[in-house]
């Protein structure tokens, strides 16, 4: 188990402040945040590769703050994999074995992983000739070969062809399950985290803004920043009152209760879009006009103006074509009560 208490790192132009985190033994934990939020700095600080200015790190109850990285028993797989270019795949994998107590056993374990990850035929190849996916697998085996108790993964998907994303997700999930190690993954992509991690923390500008179950972060973001990060593209300042939540001239009926100023957040894919009045079927139904239509993934995104409020709505291409949705089209938007999130 890893406990991080009051951790702080001061760098020129950036600092990591008051980080408190608990990661349980065998957990797949995600550190989330936009680029430059301080996720990788935190990862390196935990690994001992970045000196701490404040705070402490405990591994299984033992204080490791002052220990050099080689004595912490934490492995790291970097975004660019950091393979040693002057060594073959075999020598990369064997690099750390000379520091292991039982080298033969460690090498046998490493060979098992090599076979499992399909790296057997590549063992005598130079690192320079490997593809991105192969490099990543070599980096994984190299780190796991020395038997770390925690594996730190720095943006494992970002340097790979998107086509391999699922494969890598599956691979990481399987390895995590089989080896029972603690994984801490840094990512700026919430989709990866939703699939892989059980718990996580969101970092913004060097501070943890929310931590807990990933599903909880996804469904109940604590701040407008987290809401935007988990894909709630409509975040509007609101005032809670006895008759509902007021946003501009509109009043929304919501499932939860609240009072005073807040933010109302809703995902584009949760808004129901129709050409006729949907008031018979939904509580919160408003008429608006399409301001723009833009491509969004395999579907389409629409910006719809209701009064002077702009909402982002997601629709399938088929829906857009069949309903003749275009700039200036009159539409009805419905906001199901359970899809409206109040952020206090």
């Amino acid at each position, binding site marked *: 188990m890893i406990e991080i208490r009051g951790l702080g790192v001061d760098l020129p132009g950036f600092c990591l402040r008051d980080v408190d985190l608990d990661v349980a033994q065998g957990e797949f934990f995600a550190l989330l945040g936009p680029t430059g939020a301080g996720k990788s700095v935190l990862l390196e600080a935990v690994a001992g590769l970045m000196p701490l200015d404040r705070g402490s790190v405990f591994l299984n109850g033992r204080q490791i703050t002052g220990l050099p*990285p080689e004595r912490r028993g934490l*492995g790291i797989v970097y975004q660019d994999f950091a393979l040693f270019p002057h060594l073959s795949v075999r020598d990369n994998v064997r690099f750390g074995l000379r520091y292991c107590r039982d080298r033969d056993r460690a090498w046998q374990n490493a060979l098992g992983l090599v076979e499992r990850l399909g790296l057997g035929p590549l063992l005598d190849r130079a690192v320079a000739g490997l593809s991105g996916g192969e490099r990543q697998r070599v980096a994984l085996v190299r780190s796991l070969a020395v038997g770390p108790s925690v594996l730190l993964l720095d943006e494992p998907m970002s340097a790979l062809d998107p086509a391999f994303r699922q494969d890598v997700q599956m691979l990481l999930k399987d390895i995590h399950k089989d080896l029972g190690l603690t994984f801490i993954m840094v990512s700026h992509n919430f989709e990866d985290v939703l699939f892989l991690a059980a718990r996580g923390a969101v970092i913004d500008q060097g501070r943890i803004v929310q931590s807990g179950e990933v599903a909880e972060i996804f469904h109940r973001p604590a701040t407008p920043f987290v809401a935007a990060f988990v894909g709630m593209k409509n975040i509007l300042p609101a005032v809670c009152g006895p008759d509902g939540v007021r946003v501009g001239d509109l009043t929304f009926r919501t499932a939860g209760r609240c009072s005073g100023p807040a933010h109302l957040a809703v995902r584009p894919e949760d808004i129901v879009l129709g050409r006729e009045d949907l008031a018979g079927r939904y509580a919160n139904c408003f008429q608006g006009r399409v301001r723009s239509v833009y491509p969004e993934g395999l579907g389409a995104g629409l910006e719809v103006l209701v009064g002077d409020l702009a909402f982002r709505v997601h629709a399938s291409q088929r829906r857009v074509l069949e309903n003749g949705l275009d700039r200036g089209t009159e539409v009805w938007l419905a906001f199901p009560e359970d899809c409206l999130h109040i952020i206090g």
Partner: protein
Amino acid sequence: MARKKDLFFWLTLCCGWVILAFLLLPLIEMVFAPSVQDMRVTIEDPAVRRTIGLSIYTSGLAALISFALGTPFAYLLARRNFPGKRLVESVVDLPIMIPHPVVGIAILSLAGRNHWLGEFLQSLGVRIMGSVTGIVTVLVFVGLPFFVNSAKTGFEAVPERLEKAARTLGASSWGAFVRVTFPLAWRGMLVGFIMCMARAISEFGAVVIVAYHPMVAPVMIYERFTAFGLKYSQPIAVWLILVSLSLFLLLRLVSRGRRAS
């Protein structure tokens, strides 16, 4: 149809030719001036052989000392940022800018009887004035910047992440340096070694002040030139060029061989 080259292209080309001619003509003229007979007679002179040998020995030793002292320092400069780093780097470059006789005078003033350091060195039996020790000291002074700068560039080209990865695999900072950084940066260090030695072997101004005797090749070339004229100094100069060129070629070949393996 090939595009017509413009005036600017011809200007760059002309400047290139002028520079090459300027650099090569005097050297070619000098190399081919002495007859084979002159060259043979010169190298049969034991004093000439001793002098060229001393030049190679002292400059090689200076490069080795620069390597031993300069490698950790170059690594520090490549990896760490600290207040005053720019100033330290300027100090390292200082010997390139100072007139060479001034270097000799500066070292002598420190090593003389009037200075506590000079007195201390003499009490240890170390003599700088007119000794091989003095020559090597001067050559390290003038050659060190070339080694440090080149090695630093070599270290900077090795991503720090590789060392970090090595550390998490169990290597100490020394282990990461020896097993990762050094094997990836040795080319920069070799280039620095060659540059440092080349600079040292060609030094005259500083050496002549600190140690006229024992005579290194540039001092002997100067002595023969002033005492006997151009004709007598040329063959030694050509021998010095030939010996140093073959040495540096050999070093380059060794480095290429290591790379291929």
